[in-house]
């Protein structure tokens, strides 16, 4: 893949958008986070490297807006024992590359590397990997049509992943 050369201003806008999305997951604030997605938006965390398909292979997550809405409600439901614990995260995003850009619409595909520390139930767990965002232009900003999260240890025996990374 070749990185599309694009203006500093465009790159800065994309960076700021990715940072904003990450900040909603840091807190976490799923009400605001969901609003960053298009109506047909999806969040996908494959279970193997280079996974091609979310339907005929198992994934750790594959949520469309419907499942995001269920998860948003479940996150604050008083009877969800696994959600009683404090959840805090810190995401660092870097190595941002615009892989494809439609000059006419401004829609683009962006890959980035991330490190995320997740604090949950007295334990801090590091996650690392690559994000692939399909972004659609929305006024001065963007919306997410799909976010793919490739963990470097996606095929290991992992514990609970309590929230979107």
């Amino acid at each position: 893949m070749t990185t599309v050369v694009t203006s500093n201003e465009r790159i800065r806008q994309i960076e700021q958008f990715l940072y904003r999305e990450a900040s909603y997951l840091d807190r976490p604030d799923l009400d605001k986070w969901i609003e960053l997605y298009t109506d047909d938006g999806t969040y996908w965390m494959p279970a193997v490297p280079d996974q091609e398909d979310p339907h005929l292979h198992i994934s750790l997550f594959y949520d469309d807006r419907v499942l995001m809405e269920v998860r948003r409600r479940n996150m604050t439901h008083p009877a969800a024992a696994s959600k009683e614990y404090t959840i805090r995260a810190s995401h660092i995003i870097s190595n941002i590359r615009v892989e494809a850009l439609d000059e006419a619409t401004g829609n683009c595909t962006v890959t980035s590397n991330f490190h995320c520390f997740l604090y949950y139930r007295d334990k801090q767990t590091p996650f690392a990997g690559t994000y692939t965002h399909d972004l659609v232009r929305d006024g001065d900003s963007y919306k997410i049509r799909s976010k793919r999260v490739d963990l470097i240890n996606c095929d290991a025996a992992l514990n609970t992943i309590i929230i979107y990374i």
Partner: protein
Amino acid sequence: MSYTEQQIAELVQPTRVHRKVYTDPEIFDLEMERIWAKTWIYIGHESQVPDKGNYFTLNYGRMPVVMVRDNDDQVHVLHNRCGHKGVKLVDMPCGKIPAFRCCYHGWRYRLDGKLLGVPHMSGYEGTGFDKDDPQYSMQKLRSESLRGFVFATMNPDAPDLRTWMGGAADVMDNLCDRAPEGEVEAAGGVLRYEHECNWKMFIENLNDTMHPMIVHRSVVDSALDYIKTLPEDSPRRDEAEIIPPFGASYEVFEETGITGFRYGHHYDGGKTSIHADYTIDPDYKAAMLAAYGEKRMWEILSFNTHNTLYYPSLTIKSAVQNIRVVRPVAYNKTVIETWSFRLKGAPDSMLKRTLLYSRLINSNGSMVGPDDLTAYFRAQEGLESPASDWIEMHRNFGHDEQHADRVVGKGTSDLDVRTQYGAWREFMTGEAA
């Protein structure tokens, strides 16, 4: 301390078990020797080693073993260690090899485990070392396959696999009969989920029908709450059939019933289960009708179980076509694997639903499994308290029906746990055949 058989027998009583069965590492060590090395343990499905030279590695109890297909198309389960210095011969989850070759001194083995060659053999001349002595080959476990599901045992006296399964084999048969071609194959990969709890806490939850309406209320409420906001003519979604039954009432679960068998096996459901009301895909129905005819098709599709346990290592969902495999690591750590299966001859939509189920219910990121796990690890930690030494299992005690080959009870009976501990006690005290 070291337990006498009498002391072990006293840990399990008709309506209660001692907390040490979960919290004592010495009991865990004894379980690995006396249960996991003595009964049939699930290894994998033959479809995971489709071609000659394909192998699949795992721990059998704590012992590394490898399932492999040899050049005569025979599937073997071998101890994964070199006959020389004990080095593990293959150390990837799966792969394909022409022969086993040790990474240390290059000893080579046939795919059925027979030692083929040792480099620089001249040094062994006249030393008494005999390359053809079977002790230097890879050692074979006794293994058997039931409709492609491969089990192994270290116990030469264990009954044959089908006898050991007893009436619980009906569910394994039903899983395979649900394929128009009568066969299933592992498909769509595996989820491996680390549980910080004793292995028994996981299997004791399978037919625990008193927990779903408590533990899974949040996800059911959340799903129903969202569904309410949708227009009535919204397209049907499998999620809306899969999630809400986890919030079914005590009365619904009571009706499903539980059936227990010798050696610790049991299932809930039969006539009905929380999987019974799934929409039947019309293409699948057509394929089943063509394969079996109307009467036999409905016989197959109306046998609806929820979870079936083949004690201690395998639990299957025949109506969903996924399985979970129990891999104990330590007294307080267990890895649960979720595998999904394709019904041969069925449309892809069936596998897609199976994988949706595995992801929605069993994945590390799901909204169901993590709430179960929270209950298990809180129990694991809570049982460190000596406030009481005993965990009770009285529900419906004395009211289950004893039949010649099975015990049948109401859906909320603790007969599943009592069945498990009956087997546990027999194995741990050496009474089991």
